[in-house]
């Protein structure tokens, strides 16, 4: 039988605010346990939440970017369950009236475009963390993360393969970083994902029973976890079994999913509107402000790059994959005044390769846009050759000097003076009579030998066009 997979994703994006969603405690990652939790985060008796207005703006921004409906008001609700790292015994979230309504995202898989519906996005607070190591059989609680603002983005079950799911997740990942509402750091848990996966016989309209895969924290794992779950479900059904609705945990070490709890064991969360918080009204004024602040979005930027810089899809996709990289590229083009293509080749080539090799993000680049532009200028005006440029690039990476300073200090300026090149060539012809003879007797390949020797003797600085020209003349 042929099977069809149905996937929906729930993405938790941590909003990049300085303070928590309902208190003024800082959100910085990695502090000593319980040093970034105030009375409100600890859920002490008598404390009350006060909404951080920044998160409202960020959520509205996201809603506008996915062309979603943004209702005039939204409501916070209490989601009740007991867990030691949930200080109040309830999580403040949103249920019936989320801040962002229905929207959509377009993905591109192997050149095919597809529109994925976004059911809703709502605001909520994160819980703390239970620490099971180093407590001699007890469990430690770290509440630093408690109250960190999250935007939960829920998709429609519109994806039909793990590949589509990854494409969708990447697209959301790009978008939240473009909007500067989430740092997207998956290792620190700033961007994580649960996947609802089911299978059905191809052609069947009703959905199969789904399993929810929890807590998948990399693109690679999303793809692997979904694929292994699809395989499990198909094997199960074809072997005469049935899929049960349950929550499953992906185990990356063994590449398998394991049952966490079944539907019967699931909590009744008893959602009800939080009486400590007023409904959030989204005024027209706020809408206008956020709209005015909205940056150029990834799809629009890519389209513009293709047109304005005559780029192919691949280059434009790479350059617009992050707002910082796109900005960097455009700055290099502007400062250097060089051809867009030369700039694109360098940014996508040597520059990105060096960043990747060093494991650095664009905002940590050791070569600023001015210094890279300085290098490209010297390539364009033929002060240095492409080969020497790579050498200069490495120097740029290591230090603070400009391309001009490096070229000057290391004497890397290209030799274009034909007399100087002629002198070098004359010496090489004189030193290699055998090769001259070979060439003159018809072995044209030997020409390359003379070019190589000349470049070597000039330490790569001789202008290759000049070298070719003079050699042709001398070896007639």
């Amino acid at each position: 039988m042929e099977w069809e997979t149905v996937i929906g994703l729930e993405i938790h994006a941590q909003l990049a605010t300085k303070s928590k969603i309902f208190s003024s405690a800082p959100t910085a990652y990695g502090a000593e346990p319980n040093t970034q939790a105030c009375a409100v985060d600890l859920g002490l008796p008598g404390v009350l939440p006060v909404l951080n207005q920044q998160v409202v703006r960020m959520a509205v921004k996201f809603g506008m970017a996915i062309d979603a409906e943004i209702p005039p008001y939204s409501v916070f609700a209490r989601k009740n369950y007991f867990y030691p790292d949930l200080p109040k015994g309830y999580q403040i979230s949103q249920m019936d009236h989320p801040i962002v309504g229905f929207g959509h995202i377009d993905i591109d898989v192997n050149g095919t475009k597809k529109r994925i519906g976004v059911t809703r996005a709502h605001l909520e607070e994160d819980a703390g963390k239970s620490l099971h190591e180093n407590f001699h059989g007890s469990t430690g609680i770290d509440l630093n993360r408690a109250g960190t603002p999250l935007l939960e983005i829920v998709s429609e079950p519109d994806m039909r393969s793990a590949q589509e799911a990854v494409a969708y997740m990447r697209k959301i990942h790009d978008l939240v970083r473009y909007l500067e509402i989430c740092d997207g750091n998956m290792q620190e848990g700033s961007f994580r994902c649960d996947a609802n996966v089911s299978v059905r016989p191809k052609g069947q309209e009703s959905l199969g029973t789904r399993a929810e895969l929890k807590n998948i924290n990399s693109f690679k794992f999303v793809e692997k976890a979904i694929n292994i779950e699809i395989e499990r479900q198909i094997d199960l059904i074809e072997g005469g079994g049935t899929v049960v609705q349950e929550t499953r945990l992906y185990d990356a070490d063994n590449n398998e999913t394991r049952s966490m709890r079944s539907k019967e064991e699931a909590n009744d969360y008893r959602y009800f509107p939080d009486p400590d918080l007023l409904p959030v009204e989204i005024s027209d004024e706020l809408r206008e402000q956020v709209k005015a602040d909205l940056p150029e979005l990834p799809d629009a930027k890519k389209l513009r790059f293709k047109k304005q810089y005559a780029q192919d899809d691949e280059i434009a996709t790479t350059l617009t994959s992050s707002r910082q990289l796109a900005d960097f590229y455009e700055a290099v083009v502007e400062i250097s005044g060089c051809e867009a293509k030369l700039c694109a080749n360098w940014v996508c080539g040597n520059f990105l390769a060096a960043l990747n090799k060093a494991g650095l993000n664009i905002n940590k680049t050791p070569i600023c846009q001015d210094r890279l532009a300085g290098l490209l200028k010297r390539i364009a005006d033929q002060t240095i050759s492409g080969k020497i440029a790579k050498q200069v690039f490495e120097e740029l990476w290591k230090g603070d000097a400009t391309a001009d300073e490096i070229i000057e200090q290391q004497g890397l300026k290209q030799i274009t003076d034909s007399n100087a090149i002629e002198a070098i060539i004359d010496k090489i012809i004189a030193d290699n009579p055998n090769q001259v003879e070979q060439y003159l007797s018809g072995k044209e390949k030997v020409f390359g030998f003379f070019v190589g020797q000349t470049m070597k003797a000039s330490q790569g600085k001789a202008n290759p066009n000049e070298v070719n020209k003079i050699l042709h003349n001398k070896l007639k």
Partner: protein
Amino acid sequence: MHNKTITELAKDLREGKFSSVELTQSYLDRIKKHSELNCFITVAEDFAIESAKMADIKLANGDASPLTGIPIAQKDIFCTQGTKTSCGSKMLDNFISPYNATVVEKFNHSGAVMLGKLNMDEFAMGSSNETSFYGAVQNPWDTSTVPGGSSGGSASAVAAHLTAAATGTDTGGSIRQPAAFCGITGLKPSYGRVSRYGMIAFASSLDQAGPMTRSAEDAATLLQTMSGFDPKDSTSMNKPVPDYSMGLNNSLEGLKIGLPKEFFSEGLNDSVARVIETAVDEYRKMGAEIKEVSLPHMKLSIPVYYVIAPAECSANLSRFDGVRFGYRCDEPKDLNDLYIRSRGEAFGDEVKRRILMGTYALSAGYYDAYYIKAQKVRRLISEDFKQAFSEVDVLMGPVSPSTAFGLGEKTGDPIEMYLADIYTIAVNLAGLPAISIPAGFVNEKPVGLQIISNYFTEPHLLNVAHKYQQTTNWHQQTPKGFE
């Protein structure tokens, strides 16, 4: 000196008739002498004397506010830094708050002296103060009767002159009913007038703190200090605070008083009814016009309240889980055992009953039938009041169908206890301000007159109460043995 109102005490302190330290000591002595009333959970003797010394310096320097040096006491529901805050529960018997409630901060700032923390029904759930982990409180008018609840310790302490004034909180009548039972003045302000920050939540959409005093004039002074917008409480109203003392003596000529007929129907004790009618007559003499009005949905206020309040409390009390603070059972076997035994051993029956009711009302499949429906009826109740206030300025009626009942008399029948709150609960559901003032006695037990006014019209409410107290002396009566 303990027989004086705050206005009189403030005058005497300024004139140097006695110091705040002397005044404070005299109250501390009375608290000790009448400890059998069981009004206080914690007496903060050293703290009080220290504060009084500071107040005396302020008084001497002439930079005193109307409350500087005046001894007051806090209901034990308000978090007080460094002093135990128990909320009347075993759960918080070991809890010392690391921060002050906004109300407490405001009193500290005003220079008032805090004598200690007052007894109350556990987590403010009760109408007789009998659910307290620290034992029942006696009513000084008849020590075999209850003082009312949940602010029973506050009412009894003010009536017995163990403090010049006290704070209370009112979720369904918890200020007004004990004020009525103990013959004092108790004001529940409009919802949002006083910050709830640091006041341990029972039912967040209903809870409101207010003053419990010997006169409406004193209530005005305390409310002045307690009121105001608090950025830490999203439900507090960002509205300027008027001068509550300024209009106290305004004429009541032409005042339109509405008597909701539902307040005078079956269930009301005849003698109590007569006291209320006499009080209303007093207003007629002052030039007020009396009119019958109707609050047709008021009879639904008890079932509505007993869905909404327990629903909210079931979530509010989840934080008491034995993990971070408060009571933890000995030797828990595992996490579930920790939860079950910590909560099972530390919560009293009434608290458990309400958590169970609330959890049930919010459960899947019942939520729409209970919680959503209750919210709809709540709106209808508010509409009733809106309609009434389009016809009259204030509403008057009894606070409670009877006077203080005997200790232990109703503990076996929670429903009967709940039903006795019929006249107070609707006011909380609507979020309106209301006051209880002493209006006479039945069998030597005080009867309270309830006056309800429109949203944020506390100055008017206090004016109406104060004028009555200018022509009557019910509020000046002192129980025998506590003169």
